[in-house]
């Protein structure tokens, strides 16, 4: 094993552990704010349980939720970094080791054989999204993605003539249909354009953006806020028991679309919105960007 393989593996294990035990600050703040401003008793009771659970997980260094998700990586690889072809194997090894060390629940089932592989790895899993950047650094982000919120992610091929109004309806309808199933309050990633696959890819990636960072385009930021206000008027509430807080934040991304198509995607994340990022510098130094290393 060469240096880069070892560093990537160690860093990925650390990121998995940090992600499943410690929630990012922006998510914790949003949940605290939701608790303080929730209007129903049932909603308050459940948000209090969530906040207590987050603290207990940190104190006992235990995964926040027993569903530690499907393991997905986002890599920004500097084009001048040597041995980039070794990274995928290092990430797979890290996932396997993290499963027994942390522990993670084994969540990779071979869909043909119907058997759980037992170590969170399998065909195409862990899945890695690649982006080539300038320089010789590697940025690794892990997103352990919960199943309950994944089951309500929806792609729609909307009618181009309805424009943004069609998108608004689609988002409101998707959240209505999801109801109590994704353990609300959730975070929404919304994307338009590209194609059916591109829209969902962008929607899911939008879940990585912190809740306190609106879209840099003011027009899109306004749409994010309008959609958030709209879905929170549905009254589904924490755990679907009724209340003000169904969604904690809406993050939008988009691609150009075909004139005849209006692809749209809504990706849900759990309130346990697990993500962690680190940068590996060319000298092997590792900088943790989302979490304090502990």
């Amino acid at each position: 094993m060469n240096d880069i393989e070892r560093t990537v593996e160690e860093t990925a294990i650390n990121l998995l552990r940090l992600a499943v035990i410690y929630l990012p600050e922006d998510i914790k703040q949003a949940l605290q704010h939701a608790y303080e401003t929730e209007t129903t008793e049932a909603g308050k009771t459940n948000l209090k349980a969530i906040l207590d659970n987050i603290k207990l997980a940190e104190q006992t260094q235990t995964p926040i939720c027993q569903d530690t998700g499907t393991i997905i990586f986002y890599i920004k690889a500097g084009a001048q970094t040597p041995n980039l072809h070794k990274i995928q194997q290092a990430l797979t090894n890290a996932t396997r080791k993290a499963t027994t060390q942390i522990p993670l629940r084994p969540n990779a089932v071979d869909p043909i054989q119907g058997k759980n592989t037992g170590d969170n790895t399998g065909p195409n899993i862990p899945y890695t999204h690649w982006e080539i950047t300038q320089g010789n650094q590697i940025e690794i982000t892990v997103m352990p993605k919960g199943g309950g919120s994944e089951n309500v992610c929806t792609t729609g091929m909307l009618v181009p003539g309805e424009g943004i109004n069609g998108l608004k309806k689609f988002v409101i309808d998707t959240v209505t249909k999801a109801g109590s199933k994704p353990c609300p309050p959730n975070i929404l990633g919304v994307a338009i354009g590209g194609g059916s696959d591109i829209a969902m890819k962008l929607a899911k990636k939008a879940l990585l953006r912190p809740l306190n960072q609106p879209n840099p385009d003011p027009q899109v930021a306004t749409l994010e806020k309008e959609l958030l206000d709209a879905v929170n008027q549905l009254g589904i509430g924490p755990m679907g028991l009724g209340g003000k807080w169904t969604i904690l934040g809406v993050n939008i991304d988009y691609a150009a679309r075909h004139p005849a198509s209006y692809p749209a995607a809504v990706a849900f994340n759990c309130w346990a919105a697990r993500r962690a990022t680190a940068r590996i510098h060319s000298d092997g130094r590792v900088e943790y960007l989302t979490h304090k290393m502990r």
Partner: protein
Amino acid sequence: MATYKYKTPISEDDIRKLKVNDVLYITGTIVTARDQAHRRALEWAKQGKQLPINLNGLAVFHCGPIVKKEGDKWIAVAAGPTTSTRMDIFEDEFIKNFGVRVVIGKGGMGKRTTEAMKKHGAVYGAFTGGAAVLAAKAIKNIRTVEWYDLGMPEALWIFEVEEFGPLSIAIDSHGNNLFEAVAKTTEENRAKIYEKLGIGK
């Protein structure tokens, strides 16, 4: 809303006191059962075979926990609820046959279960989805595991718990279903939001 603290076995009289939106904490014995355990339990009942544990007055928990073994002892690491709707096809018969008083899960259950709860005296207590460490903390002892051949998530884990909760009573024994009420309000709200945004029907 009121808060209740009950010890198992729970009587029908005590269950009938609970109304939707109340909060319940349970001390005593709760037993996990998911899809496969429900199916097998009902098959055994049909064949007149005794279950490995008498569920009368106890709570059944829709949960596939992470457990670890230390020496001879099982320890619950994380034990949050799973989605209950999958058990809707079994739960009315389950309540009728075994006399469970509380069903614990997340996401709610449908008409069949609501009617069985009204008829036989049982409630649905929603535990916060994802709050797996909070649940594990209330599990003081794993008395035993039965039907381990079904796999770790599907086995019957018999937990001894102290003040397990908060459980939001979402279906009571009087025919009220909070999830159905919320779903109805949500539909009405959706129409109002459409109107407000001027986006038609």
